């Protein structure tokens, strides 16, 4: 099978790799780049565990052909923290006990980041809408909703 040369920004860093035709972005990130933060949940867009940002917009990496991100910027959970400093969303998730098993957490955080980037002061209904494509089995969602709202208001207080 022919390989396709692919270049894109991965969490602010240029990466270049060769991918087989039909390889999805999730596999490229996990197996070719070694970024294990996007999770494989269902592989068909039903759970949100693989969520990443492409040019700032939320996408399901399991349903995105790797070739289509050529020349674009991909952000994953791995790029969220700033060195040893957690992102306000990560801190809020920690403080609100918004993770138990943690498998949905990377996707939840990326969905929440996409929301706060376009709407720094979301309502509760807007938070619910923003994470409604992400399944969580442990928390009952309430702590996650509270964490996103806390990160949003915390961000305002600091700004």
């Amino acid at each position: 099978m022919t390989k396709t040369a692919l270049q894109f920004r991965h969490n602010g860093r240029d990466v270049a790799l060769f991918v087989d035709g039909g390889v999805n972005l999730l596999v490229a990130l996990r197996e070719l780049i070694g970024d294990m933060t996007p999770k494989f949940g269902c592989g068909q867009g039903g759970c949100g565990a693989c969520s990443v940002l492409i040019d700032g917009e939320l996408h399901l990496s399991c349903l995105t052909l790797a070739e289509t991100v050529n020349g674009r910027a991909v952000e994953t959970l791995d790029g969220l923290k700033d060195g040893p400093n957690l992102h306000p969303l990560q801190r809020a998730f920690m403080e609100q006990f918004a993770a138990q098993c943690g498998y949905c957490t990377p996707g939840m955080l990326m969905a929440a980041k996409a929301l706060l980037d376009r709407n720094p002061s979301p309502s509760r209904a807007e938070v619910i809408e923003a994470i409604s494509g992400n399944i969580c089995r442990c928390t009952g969602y309430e702590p996650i909703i509270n964490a996103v709202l806390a990160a949003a208001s915390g961000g305002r207080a600091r700004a």
Partner: protein
Amino acid sequence: MAKHRGRGIASINYPIGMNLGGDPSQALVHSNPSGKFTVSLSSIDLGQGMKSVTRQICAETLGVPVEDVYVDTADSDTGPHCMGSFASRGTHRVGNAVMAAAKEARGVMMEAAAEELEVNAADLETDGRGNIHVKGAPHRSISTKDVAIAAQFKQGKTISGRGIFLVPLSEVNPETGEMSPATCYAHACLVAEVEVDDETGEVAMVRMDSAYELGRALNPRLVEQQLVGGAWMGISHALFETPEPYYPDPAHGPRDFVEYLMPGPGDICPHDIAVLERPAADGPFGAKGPGEMCANPVLPAVANAIFNAVGVRMDELPITPEKVLRAIKAQGGARPQARR
């Protein structure tokens, strides 16, 4: 055609652990020369907080800071045996085993400290900040780190302990059928309020109020997260999830998250929880366990609330819109019961 509100209540007793031939768990505790302690377990933390709570129990029993304890649950091949993380048994069974192991390790640690300070071990106490000193004379002190180093390199002692907690098999009395399947029970009561649409059969959660009695809450935030998350599972079991139609035969069953339904963040409701603490006599620091019981009262409470709302008795789970609609049609329309 209208939406009807209804309220239902359910109370449960929940046995901690199981009794199918005895219910044991083991733990090992040892110190490293750094003065830090490792708890070895085969028990699994699947997000419920097993590592946090056993860490607290070990640190409290040893008398050292919680930061000085590391819990290793890595491998059921090499770790001490555990029956598993289920039946709400983790905190109670494994916690008791950790407590026993930490007690034995503390004995060795105090003996080693006594030898270094040239006093009787019975005259020593821990300050919980990583030091051991003579009672009433805090200046006669040695750090747990120095004790660990002395035990390892000078005295040739292992600061370690073994623990097992076994609830023995309860035999059934052949005359009466009587047995004691559990040594302690947790209790819960939950009120659910729902809204039933008699045109579509849909049931929406309006709110829940609950009270849980689960022994001493060793880590209140973890207990709360169990109760909040577990109640969601209860809603899911009551109204959404099913491996039907031919379970355990998977034929024609759900294959993915489009067919295996669960409530999303928009399907939850306000839930007010009261935690009542009545320490269990045989629990580690009085703890029982807030595991499976978090989900259990939700199901009967929701079924009762649906009866209160539209007068149909649903006795098969999950209570899907189709089932509700068929039941309403069978009785010739919604019959709201007295508001309670």
